[in-house]
Structures are given as C-alpha cells and as structure tokens.
C-alpha cells in the first residue's frame, strides 16, 4: 500500500464535514467535462479580448485619421466631430468590451497567463494592417510577429490557473 493512502483516508473522513464534494469525489468523467468547459470558456474569453482589442484599435485609428488637427478647430466643434464619428464610438465600445473580457479572465486565470497571451493582439493588428489597410509591413515586424506567436504558444502550453491545477494534482 503506498504511503499516501493513509493521508487520503484522513482527508476523506475530514471532507465528510464539507458541504461541497472535493475534486476526488466527483467522477472522472465529470471532472474531464468540467475541465473541457473551463478550457473552452478561457479560449472564448481570450479570443474575445484579442479581437475586441485589435478591432477596437483599428477602428480608433481609422476614426482619428479622419479627424481634423486638434488646434485647427474649436473645442465644441471638435467634440461634436468626435461624437458623430462613425468609427470612434464602436471603437471605444470594443475597447470597453476588451476591458470586461480581460478583467473577467483575471477572475479565474493567472495574470502571468493572461497578459502574454493577449499580446497576440499585436499579431492580429499587424495582419489587419497588411490585409485590410494595405499597409507596407516590414520584415522586422513579421519577425516580431513570429516571436510573439512562439511566446504565446509556449505560455498557452501551461495551465491557465496554476493554483487550481496544483489543487487538482493533489490527491487530497
């Protein structure tokens, strides 16, 4: 009998006083399903954060490009132009959505996981710049995109929540 069996038995007796069952009491299938759902939720929110950040910045950039110079017009007229600009309002809304996605991710995923993965918005923005705005993208930038992609792949290879992962790995 392995050494940790005694500890597991103790944990099982102690857990009888808990109102919610610990991880080991749930069936293996249920745990796999929960993990799958959690991964899907994380992936969905990361996708939402990256796309809302990239498209939000794209719309803000297009909108600001169509604005006159700040000093060239009166403050009232400038504000009117800002509020009636068809690109700035959706751009600001997407930026707000990005904040909600990022803060929601922080409620279950690690900071050291979320921040580098969201940096993939640089990749999306570069692709949008090249293929939607038809900008000339230099070789150095593509090299940067490659490095970011490799970094994001490495970070995504780790569990999103290390504390939860450590608890699930613990037999108790």
């Amino acid at each position, binding site marked *: 009998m392995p050494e940790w069996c005694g500890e597991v038995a103790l944990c099982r007796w102690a857990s009888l006083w808990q109102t919610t069952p610990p991880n080991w009491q749930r069936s293996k299938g249920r745990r796999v399903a929960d993990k799958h759902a959690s991964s899907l939720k994380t992936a969905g929110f990361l996708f939402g954060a990256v796309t809302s*950040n*990239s498209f939000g*910045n*794209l719309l*803000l*950039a*297009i909108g600001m*490009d169509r604005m006159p110079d700040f000093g060239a017009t009166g403050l009232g007229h400038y504000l009117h132009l800002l509020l009636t600009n068809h690109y700035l309002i959706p751009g600001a809304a997407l*930026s707000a959505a990005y904040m*909600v996605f*990022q*803060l*929601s991710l*922080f*409620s*279950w995923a*690690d*900071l*050291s*996981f*979320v*921040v*580098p993965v*969201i*940096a993939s*918005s*640089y990749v999306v*923005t*570069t692709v*949008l*710049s090249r293929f939607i*705005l038809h*900008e000339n993208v*230099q070789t*150095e*930038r593509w*090299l*940067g*995109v*490659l*490095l*970011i*992609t*490799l*970094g*994001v*792949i*490495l*970070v995504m*290879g*780790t569990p999103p929540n*290390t*504390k939860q992962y*450590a608890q699930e790995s613990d037999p108790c």
Partner: protein
Amino acid sequence: MLTWLLILLTVVAGSCGDVLCAKGMSTEGELHDFHPSAIRRVVRSIITRRLVIFGALCDAVSFFALLGLLSVTKLSIAVPATALSFVVDTLGAEFILHEGVHWKRWVGVILVTAGVLLTVQSGSHHKPELSGTRASTVGAVQSNQD
C-alpha cells in the same frame, strides 16, 4: 533623468494596475454568469471591487506618465520601454500573487517582449507622432498608423 523617472512610472504604475486588478478579480471569486441579460450585473460586480478601482487609478497614472514620456523623448525610446511591463507583470505575478510561474511562461514572456520590441521599433521609424495608452494599445495603434 526625467525620462528614466517617467519610464519607471509608466511601467511600474501599469504593472501595479494589472496586479491590483488581477488580485481584485481573483480574490472575490470566479465570474460565472455571462448570459446577455446578466452583463449589467457582471459590469457592476467588476467596477465595485475596491482593488479593481485602485488598479484602474494606477493605469490612469501610467497613461499620463506615458503621455509625459512622449513629450520629453522620442517615440522609438518611449514605446519599446513600455514593453518591459510584460516582464514586470510576470515578476508581480510570481512574487506578489504567488502564481508559481512555470519556466515555459518565463521563456514565453521574454519571447513576447522581444517580439513587441521588434514590432514597435520597426514601426516607429516611420511615423514619430503617436498618442496611446498601454503597451498593447500603443503597439496596436502604432501598427495601424504607419
């Protein structure tokens, strides 16, 4: 000297903002209900967390420090310097949030930082005028502009 102080303020305030937001969001439990009818409740739940409010204030300080930095130095120095926030964020995650950062994450963060430096540097040679917020926003806006 002022440039270094502003770089330090931009990076540290921005990372403090991220760490405070992450702490505020993680200590009060995972958000579960994201049904469209519950969005208002989710937003209210986020903006009433004290640490998140402090985090947003730190982000605001970082934003104004970046604007100040852009007024005293070249874009090609100011913007890449903010890419350091990825490394400082990870240090905060390791030593303040005790996340137990895996070596793969460290390598990933260094690759991402190097990639962002390359991306932003190659763009900054073209158009020196820029205003933006955090490193990600700055880089994204920058890449849209050049």
